[in-house]
């Protein structure tokens, strides 16, 4: 068993290092390009896929917020219009209220005449 292990270890140790068939530096260098802009806003936003996703999410939220603000502004405008319309309607109603003015004589002058008639009927002659 030990002999087999030793033999195997020798075979493994004899394996040579391999090397790439082509020159790799140019590939490495081309991929360094985006990473060179370290600390800049461009790299911060667009450097890696994670960052791209974050930038896209942030842009989406900003657009959504803008659309929401516009929508709320439009609602506000229409609310103001509704209020103005309501005020117009309210201006009409007081006319009906003005028709009923407070008076001590609700029968408008006919009360005394009616009372006189009643007295005449009830007072025997």
């Amino acid at each position, binding site marked *: 068993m030990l002999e087999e292990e030793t033999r195997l270890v020798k075979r493994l140790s004899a*394996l040579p290092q*391999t*090397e*790439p068939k082509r020159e790799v530096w140019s590939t490495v260098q081309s991929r*360094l390009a985006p990473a060179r802009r370290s600390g800049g806003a461009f790299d911060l936003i667009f450097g890696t896929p994670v960052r791209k996703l974050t930038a896209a999410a942030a842009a989406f939220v900003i657009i959504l917020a803008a659309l929401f603000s516009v929508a709320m502004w439009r609602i506000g405008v229409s609310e103001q219009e509704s209020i103005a319309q309501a005020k117009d309607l309210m201006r009409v109603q007081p006319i009906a209220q003005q028709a009923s003015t407070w008076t001590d004589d609700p029968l408008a002058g006919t009360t005394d005449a009616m009372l006189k008639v009643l007295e005449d009927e009830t007072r025997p002659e």
Partner: protein
Amino acid sequence: MTSGFAYDFGAGNEELLRRCKEGDETALRELLRRHERPVYSLLYRMLANHEDAEEALADVFVKVWRSASKFRGDSKFTTWLYRIAANTARDRLRARKARPEVAMEDEVLSEIATVGTTTVDPEQAAVDADEFTRVEKAMQKLSEEDRLLVTLYHIQESSLEEIAEITGRNRSNLKVKLFRARRKLRAHLEELDRETSNELQSGTTGTLGLQSGPAESSTG
């Protein structure tokens, strides 16, 4: 080697990494020059494919460039570098799992196997190449983790402490895992050796490109 690039034999790995942090690309190029072969060997044994290994090699050194500020010096530079390489290989293998396994070509293996050999005798070189091919084939039959352990320990000659750091495993578990990996490797090698010996005896040219051996050669 292109003109305009001067080797920097004096600076240590950590010094070169410090220069990478400052944006010195020549420092990265020097690191690539120094560590290309062992890193590529590791990647090739993990990925079993030239193209993937070359792409992974570029990925590794781009990650070294981008993570230069994260190296704290707690471990050796090579430990940190091999950890990046092992993780890069694992990521590629995971991404590849949905696609069919890429088979290693024997011709390619033989060609790669002769790189780095110092044998001048062409016959010996051919024998060596066959041996290396057989061992590489047997290694490919191991699991991803076993292959990594065997490559790091026996081929890259990393210590158990370094391998524990690279793989994130407990040092005490590694000995057992290595023993088991070697046992499986031995079984695969014995199988391949048996196949080769059967081919030799039957006098046919096998998949490893072997021709009739000395036992079959005609005498005087």
